[in-house]
């Protein structure tokens, strides 16, 4: 059972990492436009990325 001493903190840490990623994505506004995200995946976004490269 001693293995639990390592495994439980590791499991919790991984979970917390996931939670932190979720909170980050929420704060950076990735859930603000769920409908648009569904459409954007189909976009051929070469034009936009070119412009972004220019920066």
């Amino acid at each position, binding site marked *: *059972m001693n293995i*639990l001493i390592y495994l*439980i903190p590791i*499991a*919790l840490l991984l*979970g*917390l990492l*996931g*939670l932190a990623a*979720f*909170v980050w994505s*929420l704060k950076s506004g990735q*859930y*603000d*436009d*769920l*409908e*648009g995200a569904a*459409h*954007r995946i*189909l*976009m*051929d*976004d070469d*034009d*936009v990325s070119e*412009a*972004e490269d220019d*920066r």
Partner: protein
Amino acid sequence: MGQQTISDNARLHSAVEPQSSGYETLVQTNDDGLYVLSVLVSGVHCAGCIQKIESSLAREQGIRGVRLNFSTRRLALEWEGTFEQANAYVAIIEALGYSVQPYDIDVEKSEIFKEERFLLLCLGVAGFAMGNVMLLSVGLWSTTTETMGIATRDFMHWVSALIALPTILFSGRPFFRSAIKALSAGHTNMDVPISLALVLAGGMSLFETVNHGEHVYFDSAVMLIFFLLIGRYLDFRARKNARSTATDLLSSLSGFANVVGGGGFVGNTNRILIRDLEEGMIVRVAAGEKFPIDGFIIDGESDIDTSLVTGETMPRTVCVGAEIFAGTLNLSAPVTIKVAAAAEDSLLADIVRLMEKAGQGQAQYVRLADRAARLYTPVVHSCAVLAFIGWWIVGGLVWQDALMVSITVLIITCPCALGLAVPVVQVLATGRLMREGILVKSGDALERLSDIDTVMFDKTGTLTLGQPTLDGVYDNDMMQMAASLTAHSAHPLSRALSDAYDGVLYGVSNVEEISGKGVRADYNGQLIKIGSRAWCGDMDVPQSKALELWLNIAGQPPVAFRFIDHVHKDAAEVVEKFIKNGIDVVMLSGDRQAVADDIARQCGIFKVYAEQTPTQKYDVLERFKRDGHKVLMVGDGLNDAPVLAGADVSFAPGTAIDMAQNAADIVFMGGKLHPVYATYKVANLTQKLVKQNFALAVLYNMIAVPLALAGFVTPLIAAVAMSGSSLIVIANSFRLRFSA
């Protein structure tokens, strides 16, 4: 084409001032020192639109960020340089064919926006906690205390407590807040028993953990929060788009108007926000523009399309002194008007006020879920109290054990299934309708739709196509000559005639459009006129109900072209289907009685209210509602907006003006009337499934509550029962996808 025509056209075009100016006043600066502008872009329908707009702006100099939010139609622009560039950027979007409106940036920081993020955050935290607590719980369930030893079990309980207690405090806030609000107002809601169960489950589990007990419900408590938050979030998303009457409406007053400086007729015009217009100001309105405000014409003569305000199809000719209303469309020539009342006193504003009043009447609707909650709370609480008293006094247990039974009753009856019953079905139903081109803006609209017993249809643009089309067959030579003239006019009848003819046009010269009369031109030295009966028609021919244009070639008898506003092909069918379902069908129209009666007969409607002003339309609705009817309104115009807002549930076609679409609960696309009935059908199915879900939830409680009362419930049974009941309800909701 004659010289006259070209200069005529040039004059018309120069009269239309560029729309994209004045935006520099709305520019703000952000933390990075960039200029930011938020505008609403209408006409965005697909991925192509997003890409087209974003990529053409991203190519511009100075642009640092461009993002179009598809859900809110809001375009956020960031750039460096000068703030006047705003107008250039807006012009680019308009050149792509999208219309742009100023947008209040404060909406971004609104409560609704924050609330949605808050719920998602709580949901995420609860999901994380549930996964990790379950990990430990599976270990606890799969072995016995004898195998793993009390110390290990306690350790796992403590870890669970470490995760679950902060989660309850953090993610339980939506429920705690709402419960406290309800209690301090002196009544209860669904969140009171939920909060109580959460607090007691957490408290009791902590107590058990400290005392090395085995009745630890951390997993159940966290699962409870997770499932309930899913329901809460879906419900919130379904409802947040609900009709937002006042703010949206006033934003339609947020465009610009061309004000003539110094009160003169000539000179430069200033673009100012419509809401800043004051009485007595002089405003120029170009052909093709909407009148921004109520006023009187002081210069110019034109035809105006009043269909938005009165519902009449036929344009009205106006000259100096005529009163015009905000929202009507200037068709043929630029005019100058004197503002009669500030924006907040205009007819449009009156309609806004009517709509606000109508919206308040709306709020009285009590949703099925809330009605269930009212029944649920007292029943559950009395069960818990009975369990405590029963086991303590009658059953002879020590009070701690009796309290334990009582708390398990509260935990196991917690309304996961009840909380999911409505939102899951509604989200699935709105998703299904969305794929059919029907946008349901508020989740409970479907619930209200299933209750209706009266349908009110607007005439113009709803039952009919909303635009005149040529009726009958005409001689080809005559068509060619007529179309050659009408090609030079923007009058709706001219356009309808041009649409009906697709051959070669004659080159006519000296074209002149005379407001309220028609178009005249020369062809091979002959004078040709096309226009009203009084101007160039034959007064002796008996008047028909149809709209007409007369073609008069010098030396020949005039020829009449007749136009009618066609009824939607499926209008009669839809009306018949509603009547078969025992629903009363009524028609409201601002048009003349004879025209309205004719359309009503074609659709099979027997109750007609014609010649109604917007206020009268609203009064008709009030009368029906007072008589206890549940009314569905279908309409597309400004004159319908108050009725749309006040009706129990309302539809607007996708071709309707923005204001009507905002006021309606449901917007349908596709140029047919059938979606109204199809949505009604789906709404009935939705309601059936919701009721089944409630029945399942009750059934579950009928099994679980006696078990809990008898004291047989263990943490494992509680977890299985709660997740099981939630999953069954979700599975039942998904039947909506597969049924016709």
